[in-house]
């Protein structure tokens, strides 16, 4: 039987890889051609970024060669997407190739834009990529006490709990080095609480109080002054730092804006239940690339891919699939002292956060293995 559908996936991160592998498991490779275009030679398990600065994990176990992560029957093209024309069903790449499709799935993720905040590039540390996580670890090794200021520079950003997870691990690390009493930890957040979701925020705020972590809410970072070592807010406040750990400003990819699929933010508006773009029933976006009001996280990409792979598999074979995606996300987040909590939520159901456990921490601890061997492969 000849190929009846060509599925083109843009992006080789969590969303693109899970989507390709899940769809491959659900379709016949003689009938459905699946091609992924991406330009990351290595695939990094980003949640380990909060552990690496404290040497709690070896970074070598958090990265794998991207080309080995696709199931048999998925075509992987290492190239950069330079143009997307959804009217003509065509995608162009840096090497000059052109790709047509029957279904297009955009999973191009985020990019960091440090220039958005004056002073950021030379002063701020972060743990959102492997290089910066290692560099932050080196700075922490030299740290002997003073003010550490932590927080997101803006919203949205990947893995919303990561800044507070890092803060709990930092508190633990400083205590183990015997310098916690010489250090003030300041946690700042752009909203009038310490996390986007109110009941999780209440829970985290209580733990911060117990651990002596100071909170500064409604602090939207405007600039960083390298001379005075101060971070300045849009609200007119400032905070002195000896070590600044600031989540970099995030945006969608330039090619998305340049192709007219999104405004300046670079995030694509999709139907919140069907994940298709605008009037097009053959163009979808998943993962961090979307403008959906849910976490930018691997867990979100996982749930979205599960829905979309099933929907496309039914669609291609002429079946009916009347399920919708309802914003389901599950994530396990560290709360310090060897414990974690798992949050389940959707568009309509806020998460409950009341039960910390060592078992959840174990799940989090081993999640890189589960991710590479199960989740990415599309078998979970």
């Amino acid at each position: 039987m000849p190929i009846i559908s060509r599925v083109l996936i843009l992006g080789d991160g969590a969303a693109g890889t899970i989507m390709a592998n899940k769809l491959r498991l659900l379709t016949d490779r003689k009938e459905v051609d699946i091609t992924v275009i991406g330009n990351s030679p290595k695939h990094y398990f980003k949640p380990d970024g909060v552990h690496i600065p404290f040497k709690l994990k070896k970074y070598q176990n958090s990265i794998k060669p991207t080309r080995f992560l696709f199931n048999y029957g998925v075509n992987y093209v290492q190239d950069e997407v330079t143009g997307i024309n959804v009217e003509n069903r065509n995608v162009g790449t840096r090497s000059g190739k052109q790709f047509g499709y029957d279904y297009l799935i955009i999973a191009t993720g985020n990019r960091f834009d440090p220039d958005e905040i004056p002073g950021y590039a030379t002063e701020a540390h972060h743990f959102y990529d492997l290089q910066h996580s290692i560099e932050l670890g080196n700075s922490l090794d030299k740290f002997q006490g003073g003010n550490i200021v932590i927080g997101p520079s803006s919203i949205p950003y990947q893995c919303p709990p990561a800044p507070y997870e890092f803060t709990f691990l930092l508190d633990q690390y400083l205590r183990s080095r015997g310098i916690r009493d010489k250090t003030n930890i300041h946690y700042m957040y752009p909203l009038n609480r310490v996390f986007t979701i109110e009941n999780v925020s209440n829970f985290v705020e209580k733990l911060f109080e117990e651990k002596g972590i100071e909170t500064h809410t409604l602090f939207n970072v405007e600039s960083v002054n390298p001379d005075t070592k101060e971070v300045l807010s849009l609200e007119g406040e400032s905070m002195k730092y000896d070590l600044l750990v600031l989540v970099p400003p995030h945006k969608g990819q330039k090619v998305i804006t340049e192709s007219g699929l999104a405004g300046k933010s670079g995030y694509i508006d999709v139907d919140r239940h069907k994940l298709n773009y605008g009037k097009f029933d053959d163009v979808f976006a998943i993962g961090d690339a979307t403008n959906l009001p849910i976490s930018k996280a691997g867990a979100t990409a996982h749930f979205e891919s599960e829905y979309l792979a099933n929907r496309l598999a039914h669609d291609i074979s002429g079946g009916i699939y009347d399920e919708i995606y309802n914003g389901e996300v599950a994530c396990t987040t560290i709360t310090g002292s060897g414990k974690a909590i798992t949050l389940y939520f959707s568009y309509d159901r806020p998460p409950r956060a009341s039960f910390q456990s060592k078992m959840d921490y174990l799940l989090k601890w081993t999640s890189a293995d589960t991710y590479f061997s199960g989740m990415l492969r599309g078998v979970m």
Partner: protein
Amino acid sequence: MSEEVKPNKVVDARGSFCPGPLMELIKEYKQAAVGDVISVYSTDTGTKRDAAAWINKSGNELIGVFERNGYYEVVMKKKR
């Protein structure tokens, strides 16, 4: 504020959930001039409290929070 007040800028964040409407308002605020009146429409009830708190803390003027037909309107004046 009377119904006839015309804001210089309107942010329509209806359908977006917290913290979307507040972040959209802040984005618009950054581009506005001192004296501009900015209005944000939101269907998320949390916006009433979050936006008002931010407007007060940032030293701007909260003109009012109004219940419209199926959504809220928060109106502010940029003072700094």
